[in-house]
């Protein structure tokens, strides 16, 4: 048991090896966190579906260096993203801007919801009217059921 505990205790020391990849000097923590946020959000144009923080493609290295340079020069988050989009297109940023094409991503779910609500409402209404609209048939059916029950008992 104590051996097992010792083994478990050893695993506690193996957690701090994350993202020690690059050690870049920053003037202040705001710039450091801006840089880290940006390299997570910018997308590598070469190796699709990796951000530039994860990718080691040449273009990602260049983009990281450029991001660092611009952040050090005091560019804002928006300005750095615009700088990259200006060269590599909207593809390069993970959150797409609102334009005539991407607007459908927001509209379609709402349209779908409205359609479903309308469909369900209509179904419920038609079921109610169908039940209420034919009292003669109801009576007839009741009579048949009663006859069946009395025969059974």
């Amino acid at each position, binding site marked *: 048991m104590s051996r097992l505990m010792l083994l478990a205790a050893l695993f506690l020391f193996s957690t701090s090896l994350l993202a020690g990849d690059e050690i870049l000097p920053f003037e202040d923590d705001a710039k450091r966190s801006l840089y880290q946020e940006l390299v997570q959000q910018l997308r590598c*144009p*070469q190796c*699709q579906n990796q951000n530039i923080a994860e990718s080691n*493609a*040449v*273009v990602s*290295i*260049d*983009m990281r260096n*450029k991001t660092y340079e611009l952040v050090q020069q005091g560019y804002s988050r928006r300005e750095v993203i615009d700088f990259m*989009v*200006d*060269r*590599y*297109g909207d*593809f390069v940023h993970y959150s797409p801007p609102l334009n005539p094409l991407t607007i459908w991503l927001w509209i379609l779910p709402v349209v779908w919801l409205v359609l479903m609500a309308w469909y369900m409402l209509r179904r419920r209404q038609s079921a109610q009217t169908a039940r209420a609209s034919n009292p003669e048939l109801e009576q007839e059916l009741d009579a048949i059921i009663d006859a069946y029950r009395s025969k059974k008992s």
Partner: protein
Amino acid sequence: MRKWLFFAPLAIFLAVSVFLYTGLFSDPWSRDSALLNRPMPEFDLPDLMQPQQRWNRELLTGEPFLLSVWGVWCPTCKAQLRFMTELREQGIPIIGLYYPLPVDPAFGDHFSLGQLQRDVQRELAYFGDPYQFNILDENRRLSFDLGVSGSPETFLVDADGTIRMHHVGDMNPRVWRNLFATAFEELQQAALVYQEVKP
């Protein structure tokens, strides 16, 4: 209503099938370049073979040309050299933009221009030399401004220095015929007319 519902699953299946089937033939690399119809970025870079010669935007413009981003480290670039040499023989001006790999001094790498020139010379002598000259893109700054994500990539630049086409991938007879040939001829005609009109 009932009948319609009966066919709904089949209709949905067919719609999804068609969507996925067309997806099989779509190219995930094809996307519109951000640089299209914009002037070529400003730059000031040395010639690969004669580094004392510097090139800039103004020196390149005057007639339509192809700008080919390449490097000796890139196998696809080797493969396209032969066809591009044929294009040069047809009189199409091709300018090379040499895309060097990053060197990491921490691993003992260093950039040697002499070694690079020898490598380039050997490769072009062996596979064919399509380039009028090569611009050495130090630190890949111009490539970055051009939105180059790797090599090979080919740009078609018109006589005014405006980028008219940006092709990611290799240059081969099919790409030339389908994408470039007509556009290049039109630009050449336009440039001739422009030169005649200009006093």
